[in-house]
């Protein structure tokens, strides 16, 4: 997929683990893992908002577009 999720980068910057983020965002760790590994098909705005609020970042910090060749 052309959209790349850089969640692990932001987690490293904020020194937070995936399980901590899952607890604070109130999303299962399984779903967050799916998002982190790039297997998710779509993300809701409410989910993106919750993640950005907890990680104190912008959506562009998490989502990146890379054109597929």
């Amino acid at each position: 997929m052309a959209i790349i999720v850089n969640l692990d980068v932001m987690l490293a910057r904020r020194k937070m683990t995936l399980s901590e983020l899952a607890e604070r965002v109130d999303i299962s760790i399984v779903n967050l893992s799916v998002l982190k590994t790039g297997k998710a098909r779509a993300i809701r705005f409410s989910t993106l908002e919750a993640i950005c609020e907890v990680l104190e970042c912008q959506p562009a910090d998490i989502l990146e577009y890379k054109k597929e060749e």
Partner: protein
Amino acid sequence: MKISKSVQRRTVVFAALAALFALVQVTHLAVQSSSLINSDREKTFRTYIGEIDTSYSALALGEYEFDAITLTRDADGEPLVEALPTSLMLFSDNPAYTIPEHYGSTVNRVIFYLVVAVFVIIVLLVGWILFEAIKGFRTGNIFRRNHPVLLRWLALATFIYYVCLNNRHVLMQYAVSDIFADNLPIEVLVSVRIDIEAFIVPLLLLIFAELMAVAARINEEESMTI
């Protein structure tokens, strides 16, 4: 996806009704098959010889419309084998008479057992689909990838069932009409029948299978939406 209790109850009721109708159909088929294999009723009154369908020529029977058609006579000139107009049955009042050997009765039995086997497969497939539907409603995962596959197999089995069911006597009738062809005063048409129901029901099932396939893909997308 949470499914309400009322929807679950409705689904169980529909599934129970479908199972009841299937049971009635199985019972009906068992009674029919018993009369087909075991023609004791005909033996009580007359000797059952075989089958020939004069109903296709009913409109052209003319003088034979209400009387039995005599196909062969014995040495004294009395009717030996007769056919009832608009009927399937050949019979003889002479219990010693036996129809000449023909391939039709063997093929007829093979086709009959094929019909029974396909019907059992249909019942199992319908039961499996109903079980999956009820399980899906209870767990909230209604649309799964195997559902369209089951429906496509059901469509194929239904088509084979209808074609075989409507034509299980064709080869027997062909063989018997061949035996009595010279003595028949009317032309008996024997042909394969493929009624419209043989296409409509399977086609509807195939359309439903495609809808279920689309729904399963949407369900997967939904489950992968974070």
